[in-house]
């Protein structure tokens, strides 16, 4: 199998490029001279792009599809999902903008934190492990329900995307 480490033959001229390595491909050996003929990928991509542009211009694509594909993606919108607070931190970044005193304060806090870390950190880790385990189970159930809903929807004539929400909501 070509992908197995240790079973692949040596490349023609392996070498790391030292110093000013610029541009794509720098540092990696070029493919050998017996590389198979290149498929006309650019031509194919150009053809598909033109087809899509024409389709958009002529209104070939169903309007609900175009609208659905433009649904904005806002992973942070709405209520904070439980995952956002599942990981319990025992050490948070310590910062202060106050000159001189700020540095001393941060140093002291850091020292106290370090002294107590043997006690606090394992508790935080245990709680995080528990939170993530619960969430994994919850999401597995959620996906199972989605799959079941998807398979029952597949027996329906057509799966229609929900109406897109207006931008900014």
């Amino acid at each position, binding site marked *: 199998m070509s992908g197995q480490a240790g079973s692949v033959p040596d*490349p023609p001229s392996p070498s790391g*490029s030292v110093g000013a390595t610029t541009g*794509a491909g720098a540092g990696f*050996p070029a493919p050998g001279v017996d590389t198979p003929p290149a498929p006309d990928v650019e031509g194919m991509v150009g053809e*598909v792009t033109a087809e899509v542009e024409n389709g958009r211009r002529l209104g070939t694509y169903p309007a609900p599809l175009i609208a659905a594909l433009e*649904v904005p993606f806002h992973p942070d919108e709405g209520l904070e999902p439980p995952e*956002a607070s599942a990981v319990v931190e025992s050490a948070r970044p310590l910062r202060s903008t106050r000159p001189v005193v700020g540095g001393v304060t941060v140093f002291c806090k850091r020292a106290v934190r370090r002294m107590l870390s043997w006690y606090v950190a394992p508790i935080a880790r245990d709680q995080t492990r528990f939170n993530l385990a619960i969430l994994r189970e919850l999401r597995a159930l959620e996906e199972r329900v989605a799959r079941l809903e998807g398979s029952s929807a*597949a027996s329906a004539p057509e799966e229609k995307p929900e109406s897109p929400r207006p931008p900014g909501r």
Partner: protein
Amino acid sequence: MTAIHQLLPVLSPGDAIGQAVRRMRSAFREAGLPSEIFADQAHQRLQGEARPAAELSARVGPGDVVLYHLSIGAPVARLFAGLDCRRAIVYHNITPSTYYRATSPRVAGWLDEGRRDLARLSPAVEIGVADSAYNAAELRAAGCPATMVIPPPVDLARLDPRPARAAGPPRLIFVSRLAPNKRQEDLIRVLAALRAGGQPAATLVLPGGWDDTEAYAAGLRRLARELGVAGSVELPGRRSDREIGDLYAGASVAVCASEHEGFGMHLLEAWAFDLPVVARAAAAVPETVGDAAILLRTRDPLVWAGVVDRVIRDGELRRALVERGRRRLLDFSDAAFTQRIRDLLERLGLRRSAGG
């Protein structure tokens, strides 16, 4: 004898950095140099592999070399900065924090810290080793006096590679942690367009952990529901190597819409399973794939869907891409990695010690 040690914040068994660190140690030892791994934390399974980072200062002399693996902000960067020895950075890239501010502010803080470490440490080291020329350019921009590109070692055997044979409807795959810079939401849109067009039964599987990007993962699920494809998108979470191998083996096309990628190990994994790759031409991806993938500059899901549909239907195009993927993999062979490590040692003036 001169030693060459490695330092990193966390040694994990599953990630690319953990694999690279252990493979580099083997290469250094094979070259006859004493070499140890020092880490702030080591995964339970790797407890015997790493020594506590705090021991490092006492273990190195002025002639020894310490390589610091930089990928995120960590307290050990200060330890590295204060070492009385020769120093080098191995830079795995740091994702811009802007991707994480909305969904994972905690991660954004670590990434900002990492960028500060990059700026502080780069001018102070002898050489910076980068996974890609893209990463090397960032090192130089940060003031690193010399750089060298060493693509990470590739251990694909752990996945048990075999030619993918998708049974049933087309199945798209992208294996990576769920993260905003990976743009998994774009792939969900591509699937929706593909299903609405020529491949109504197509599915998408996105294996990858979301321990620090829970809000983003929840957003992906919401988007899939909104696009009416929730039943066709799988987010199985972090999976074992064997399970990942099975997922690759059951896929039809590997897709990658990543906007920021320091190397892209998943691209090599896809080639090992004879999968054609369609990827976004962004960051280090074009450099990694060479001509062995279809690179798209647009994010338009309709164009992506059209191209993926062609790859699924056009056997000749598919075969050509698979063949090119196989050939491209040769550039990342273990022997090539070993040679690059020898070059690094020569660059550091350690070949004489290595030869005894």
